[in-house]
């Protein structure tokens, strides 16, 4: 008989302390041992995790009103500009924003020691942050400038709202050119000197729900050490099944999530300002998503291992930047994690940018929350587009009127 469970049934089990919860790593062995049907019968929830740099991140802030009041036109936090083209004392601070006057890559490769992501981390650490603002002044908002120091507690709201996080899968970056390059995939040495990849592989949330059967709008998640929710699909959400030139399938890729949560209940250990030499600043974001084992199909999806999952190998020396096709094949996460992959017949060292030990810790923490009955699952209000929707990426063409 086919296994079918509802969110309500699983939540009843969580409330009564009877739910069986495994991490996406633990469930692999169980399925190998017991088979899909028996594993689906036994396990109610599988937890996933990832902790990596995610550039499309930031926070909506409301500072409260000064006396006299001000309609802030330009806003800086510790010298880092925030977007204030919204209501009077609202602003959006983006993770990749740099301080005014940052030397950037003028002294190549630039260091990028501080930026929006670091301000977010400073706020979470309870530090006082310098707030500066200017305005043109109106009859109702007469103030034209201010300078003060604020903490996270002083603000009315601080809502982390990340337009694109938790990439389903990511490129493995290499460099075919003959010079060292500094990228968001780290430092890549010339002539295939090294490879960098950035995914938790078998623990990664969207690799465990490749067809978006359970993760959707409203899904409650672990975000930044606290609670968050899936708000929508992420930008550049292009879920697909990746294939090589011969048509062989290499599994899912391209899905993304937009996530939201109250920054005030998050934790500075789980949202970290991050610097990439010669590239810029960003925020390392921790995300863990519970997947309800509704049926055997969901169990089949969550039981994938690093051997079954593949990253496309992409040349960042030229192909990536010039938007050229890159046909260097795929590397399995099992190969990538072994530390050596083969590209164009050459063995090269591979290193991660995404913390696997932290991904494991996130999945274990989420498991603990659920087992204690503190964290119930939410049924999505709306499921997200999957590969079946055939979404194609649009390119930006440079043209005149």
């Amino acid at each position, binding site marked *: 008989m086919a296994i079918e469970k509802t969110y309500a049934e699983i939540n009843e089990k969580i409330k009564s302390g009877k739910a069986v919860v495994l991490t996406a790593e633990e469930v692999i062995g169980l399925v190998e041992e017991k088979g899909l049907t028996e594993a689906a019968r036994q396990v109610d929830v599988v937890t996933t995790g990832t*902790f*990596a*740099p995610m550039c499309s991140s930031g926070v909506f802030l409301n500072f409260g009103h000064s006396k006299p009041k001000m309609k802030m036109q330009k806003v800086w936090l510790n010298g880092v500009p925030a977007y204030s083209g919204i209501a009077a004392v609202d602003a959006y601070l983006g993770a990749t924003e740099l301080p005014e006057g940052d030397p950037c890559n003028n002294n190549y490769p630039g*260091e990028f*020691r501080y930026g929006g992501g670091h301000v977010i981390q400073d706020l979470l650490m309870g530090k006082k942050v310098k707030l500066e603002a200017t305005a043109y002044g109106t009859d109702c908002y007469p103030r034209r400038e201010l300078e003060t120091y604020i903490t996270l507690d002083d603000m009315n709201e601080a809502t982390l709202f990340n337009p694109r996080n938790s990439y389903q899968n990511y490129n493995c970056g290499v460099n075919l050119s003959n010079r060292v390059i500094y990228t968001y995939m*780290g*430092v890549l040495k010339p002539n295939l000197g*090294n*490879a*960098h990849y950035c995914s938790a592989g078998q623990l990664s949330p969207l690799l465990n729900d490749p067809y978006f059967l359970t993760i959707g709008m409203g899904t409650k998640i672990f975000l930044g050490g606290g609670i968050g929710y899936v708000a929508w699909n992420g930008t550049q959400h292009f879920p697909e099944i990746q294939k090589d030139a011969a048509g062989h399938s290499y599994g899912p890729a391209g899905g993304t999530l937009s996530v939201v949560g109250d920054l005030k209940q998050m934790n500075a250990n789980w949202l*970290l300002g*991050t*610097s*990439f*030499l010669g590239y810029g600043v960003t925020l*390392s974001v921790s995300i863990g998503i519970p997947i309800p084992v509704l049926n055997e199909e969901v169990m089949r999806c969550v039981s994938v291992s690093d051997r079954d999952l593949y990253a496309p190998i992409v040349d960042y020396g030229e192909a990536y930047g010039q938007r050229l096709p890159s046909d260097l094949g795929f590397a399995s996460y099992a190969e990538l*994690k*072994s*530390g050596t992959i083969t590209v164009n017949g050459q063995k090269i*060292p*591979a*290193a*991660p*940018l*995404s*913390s*696997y*030990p*932290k991904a494991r810790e996130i999945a274990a923490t989420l498991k603990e929350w659920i087992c204690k009955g503190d964290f119930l699952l939410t049924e999505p209000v709306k499921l997200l587009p999957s590969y079946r929707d055939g979404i194609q990426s649009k390119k930006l063409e440079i043209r005149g009127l």
Partner: protein
Amino acid sequence: MAPNKIILRFGENTSDQPIIYRLVKDYDLVINILKANVNPNKEGTMVLELTGEKYEEGLGYLRDQGIRVQPLAEEVFRNEERCISCGACTGICPTHALSLERPSMEVKFDSDNCIVCQLCVKVCPLKAMEVRF
């Protein structure tokens, strides 16, 4: 003439002596103080760059005062609180002093293999690798 980088370690009895003045006045040395932590009646350290023809004599004077003189050996340290074991340093470290333990995938730092090239200090996205004197 290239400057010599040295570390001076003072006992609590010598920290009130004007030794820098003596190095300049009596030994004609050019001094650049990189770091100093000297307090009255306490042990202290100072990191200096010294240049001059009477360099060896100057060192002799320091030793006579009971000051321990060591060549500067910079060391790379890992700030364990900042490191999240992402692994970004492990593909860059030329001597494999930084490596991934398998299967845990934790970053391991073996300072015996570190040649203080400081590449990790530059590439660590979380600024967890630090140079200390």
